[in-house]
């Protein structure tokens, strides 16, 4: 079986005399891959390369049976054709568009933006699914953190992407809200049958979400852990989180 996402890339960055080398190789499972690592380890850069927002120097990126990037063959599919959803760190909702217009953005191909019947029905069903009906005409500035995240998810998932990338999805949220949003995320992922790659520096995200984990350090994959390598006792049993933390801390050295 071919992996849903297969990445083997390098990217050399240089700014103000400091240089950073990203050199990562990994395959992602059909469900949720968590990329764990401290800030500056290259997690976001990896995600941006997969999404097509940053061009790697060398290597290959494949999603399903589609080649997204192949330096040797001169393939570099533009971000807009990759069908890869991206949830940005603080969701990056368009501040000048209301909730409905944000969610429907990928349909409004004509200018000035107008939605046809079919697109409008789809937006309405997303509003319902994400419990945002009452907020359809609100602007992002008027929403709570949890609501913003749901709008961001709805906006990315309405395109039925082949893969969903999430950059620190719970960072901007109240700690009390995080557990609930983690459960929601797993549920939406299953519902839309979309594999996900989640980057985080919070070990709790790993415990709650991951089917596989790669631990990144200084631009490289320090460790790739399968579900069997993680403690099995779910349900947030006491000691479970501690055990996950211990494994991750061990991997990051």
């Amino acid at each position, binding site marked *: 079986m071919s992996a849903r996402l297969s990445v083997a890339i390098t990217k050399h960055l240089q700014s103000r005399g400091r240089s950073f080398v990203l050199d990562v190789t990994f395959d992602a499972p059909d469900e949720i891959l968590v990329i764990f690592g401290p800030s500056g380890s290259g997690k976001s850069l990896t995600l*941006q390369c997969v999404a097509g927002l940053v061009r790697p120097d060398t290597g290959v990126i494949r999603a399903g049976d589609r080649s997204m990037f192949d330096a040797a063959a001169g393939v570099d599919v533009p971000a807009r054709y990759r069908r890869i959803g991206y949830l*940005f760190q*603080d969701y990056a909702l*368009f501040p000048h568009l209301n909730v409905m217009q944000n969610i429907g953005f990928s349909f409004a191909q004509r200018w000035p*933006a107008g939605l046809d019947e079919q697109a409008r029905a789809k937006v309405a069903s997303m509003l319902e699914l994400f419990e945002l009906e009452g907020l359809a005409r609100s602007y992002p500035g008027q929403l709570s953190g949890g609501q913003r995240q749901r709008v961001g998810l709805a*906006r990315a998932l309405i395109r039925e992407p082949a893969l969903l990338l999430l950059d620190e999805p719970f960072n901007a949220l109240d700690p009390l809200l995080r557990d609930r949003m983690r459960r929601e995320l797993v549920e939406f992922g299953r519902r839309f049958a979309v594999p996900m790659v989640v980057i985080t520096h919070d070990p709790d995200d790993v415990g709650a979400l991951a089917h596989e984990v790669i631990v990144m350090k200084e631009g490289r994959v320090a460790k790739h852990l399968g579900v069997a390598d993680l403690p099995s006792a779910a349900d947030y049993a006491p000691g479970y989180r501690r055990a996950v933390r211990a494994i991750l801390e061990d991997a990051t050295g």
Partner: protein
Amino acid sequence: MQFSPDVLVPLALTLKVAGSATLLVFIVGVAVAWIMARHDFPGREIVDAMMTLPLVMPPTVLGYYLIVLFGRRGWLGAWIYDTFGWTLMFTWQGAVVAAAVVAYPLVYKAARAAFEGVSAKYENAARTLGASEWRVFAQVTVPLAWRGILAGTMLAFARAMGEFGATLMIAGSIPGKTQTLSIAVYEAVQSGKDSMANFLVVVTSTVCILILAGSGKLLRARQDGA
């Protein structure tokens, strides 16, 4: 003094010249500002300095450069004259070019700051949602930068209305043809028509204040609405 042709003719001409110049610098200024804000290339800093130069150079010096460029025997002017039998010198279009050059940095500076203020994450979000580069620009970048661009454009219009030095150099002071309000004021004072000068000054000041007040109101309305 009432609204005689002495006032209405230069006022209409001023609005025509300032309006055309503003449209011109809006298109060029916004395009160049976007390129400068989003692209890196060798010599970028020098280009940026060149684009800002009209802000600090005396208008008469700018006017002189324009003559060198567009005069009948100028670098470009000679070719235009040989090809079309026409010259920019002493025409209202010449006044437009003079006003545009002087007003250009105001649009360019404001638009560049506005584009740089738009976080790249919004543009990237639009790209992952299937938007073409043109759509990213038209539906994300411009709406988010609009306030700053508009403010710069309003200032450019006011500046174009008041243009004097460069306009006089390239277009002269031909009543009904190239004599704008600010030049008419000068001519009135020079020929001792004090009441005429007074009235022209009041008209010019009123129009400028109206523009600034209007732009301020427009900006506040946008802030509340979005």
